[in-house]
């Protein structure tokens, strides 16, 4: 049993990433503020990168690092566009409350 604590394996990283992802998911699900939701999404993306790097380590394959780089770039792009959308929404609605933003319904 103590092995779980003292012998850190790739599994530890993977499970940590899963937990991070889940926390991010909960954030996305329950928060009303679009900004916090964006942050939660960033957490989820980070968890994804962590998983990729862990597997890269497991398989000794540097391709994972290349994809982690791609993911970081995508995260940056996503943050930029997402925040721009939030700003635009805020300008027209004066709020960024997801509960009240239900234009997808129409």
């Amino acid at each position: 049993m103590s092995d779980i604590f003292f012998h850190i394996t790739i599994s530890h990283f993977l499970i940590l990433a899963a937990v991070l992802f889940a926390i991010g998911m909960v954030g996305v699900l329950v928060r009303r503020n679009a900004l916090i939701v964006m942050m939660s999404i960033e957490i989820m993306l980070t968890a994804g990168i962590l998983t990729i790097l862990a597997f890269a380590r497991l398989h000794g394959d540097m391709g994972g690092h290349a994809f982690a780089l791609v993911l970081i770039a995508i995260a940056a792009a996503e943050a930029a566009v997402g925040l721009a959308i939030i700003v635009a929404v805020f300008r027209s609605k004066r709020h960024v409350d997801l509960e009240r933003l239900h234009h997808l319904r129409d």
Partner: protein
Amino acid sequence: MDATQPPIYLIILLPLLGAVVNLVVGRKLSRRFVSVVGVGSVAASLAVTVSIIAGPLWAQYTAAQAGEAASPWLQQTLYTWIETGDLRIELAFRLDTLSALMALIVTFVGFLIHVYSVGYMHDEPRYAAYFGYLNLFTASMLVLVLGENLPVMFIGWEAVGLCSYLLIGFWFEKEKNADAGRKAFVVNRIGDFAFILGMCLLFYATGTLSFADFQGPEAQRNLLEIFMWGEPVATWAGILLFIGACGKTAQIPLYVWLPDAMAGPTPVSAIIHGATMVTAGVYMVARMSYMYASSTTAMAIVAGIGAVTALFSAIIALAQSDLKKVLAYSTVSQLGFMVTAVGVGAYVAGIFHLLTHAFFKAGLFLCAGSIIHAMSGSGDIMKMGGLRKRLPLTHISFLAFCLAIAGIFPFSGFFSKDEILVGALTADADGWWMYYGEFLWLLLTLAAACTAFYIFRVYFLVFSGESRADAATQAHIHESPPLVTLPLLVLAACTAVLGFVGIPKLGFLQDIGVGNAISAWLDSSVRSGIVPMEITDGGKLRVMGLVLVVAISAVLTARALYARGVSPRLEAWTSRGPWARVHKVVSDKFYVDELYELIVLRPFRALARGLFVFVDRFVIDTVFVAGPAKVVDLVGAAVRKVQNGQVQRYLAAILVGSAAIFFLASRPAISFEHEQVEPYEVTFEAMVDAGPASVDAEIEWDFLGDGEADATGPEVSHRFSRSGEHEVTMRFRDGVFGRWRSVSRTIEVAAQEESQGAGARDRGAERGSRQ
């Protein structure tokens, strides 16, 4: 394509180009230019036809006559039109003696009628369209005639039907004319459907549709040896193709469209519904003579229908009062003669009559056009009379045509009709009823008598006696312009002399070197399946003499009855007493149209109405159109609530859905099968459907029920120490989740040799459990 080959395609291409020019840009061109294009293209086509026939084909023909070459024919393959599976259809044209004669008729008569049309249609507002259609018709007819195989012929077959439709309904402003066009089209469609079926059947039987191949021994053998419903396939194919011919050639029962087709302009009646298109059926039967030769049954049907049609429509023609209607029924009757001829295997006689008929019937129609023109558009012969002096040129030519159609020596109709009568009289084949040929001959002779009577009835009513027209019409009567009369005179001259290309084969004439030119010309292209009975010169002369006497007496009767208008005695005879009723039936065309209305159209309309109400309104509109819309509407109303615009709830739904997929995907279906191979020895096979989880999966077997693994692997065999029931458990650990799952079953192990075949039987339901 051989460069030295004569350009057969030009014969078709030139009128087609004329049609394209006239139809596409004709409206913007001057009338003069349209006329030049319209007439010129056909004239050029005629010139090409003549030069090819007189050049290469004649050379081959003379060589064949001298015994140096095989049968004369030229072929030109443009390209492969359809190639799929065994079916290979070339777009090819074939010019042999038969199609050369037909092409010559089409282009020459067509040319004369184009010239006539220039004069006749000079006031027509849609002048260019008219010439475009006429050119298109000429091109289509040439495709029909020159096609090397049935599908190419069928292109022309359909295209002439289209042109016929367009030209019958040319003055579509009148409802009646448009209806007539539609009737022609629909009736022809019935025949065309049978034609297509016939083609399919032929392809099924012989694997080819090319005329050249039908002449080959292989196709001949197939046609004779493949049987369907007790008859060789040639019979069925022949009948189907002949139904198509019935439509086009206006034979019973599909002739009803032709009298109505007189609604079109008169030159159209002349070329399409007199001279060329309606003879397509006769031509087709002659073209397929190699197939019809394989079936005397089909030929008997063809001949019988032809003869009955000939007499039937000749009788109807006796009592018609409209000039063009008489000519229309006359055409049906004469076509009946031709069909009988090809039916009894007298192909040369049939084609010969086709040739002479093309001239005199075109001439009759053109004269009728000239007369109707003079009579201010009325075709009622009861209102005519005394036109001999007023229309001298028309009168002369009309008389020539009448003599020809009545079969008076030495006009062309005499020779060709006589050939047909001799052919019918001498025809006999295996399986035919006794005296069938003689019966046909009798029908045709009666029809010939009727022919002579009705045509001279028309002649005397129109040209002799006093004019019965009203004053206004009388004042307007005038001879037609030269562009109209010139073609008439040319046709009349041809009619007068054309008969001599087919001088009967009489011993004493052949002795002095006078042969039957047309027979020699056509013999290589047709093959008769019927060997005519021997007939002596005297017999032939007696047939000739008989029909001549009959015709002359019919003419004299007509003269007696109609020379000064309808004689009072006849008037009394047809208006009172028992004969009045007969006259009424005949003049009302035996009520065939009404009969069709009753037995075909009414039920059809009822069916259509029923289909409309049930299938269209209910099944399609309600069930298939409104129904799905309603269902979608209802489902949408229910599902719309789900779409509330809250992205977070969408995400929650996605999460739940993917969890469900994950759950289902991670439950592999496991089971096993077993088979007893020897006493006590049973093999087991694991059946696992675990998807990706099968990788690195483990399978354990427990045969003893003690919880210990006795074997591993998907396929194992185990030796049981004793017979009886054993509980066997298979355990499976999937490669992804690493979880164990097990399934167990009680099997019965048989010890005895004899139970080996039965194998181990299942006992009880399979029990699955998960750990």
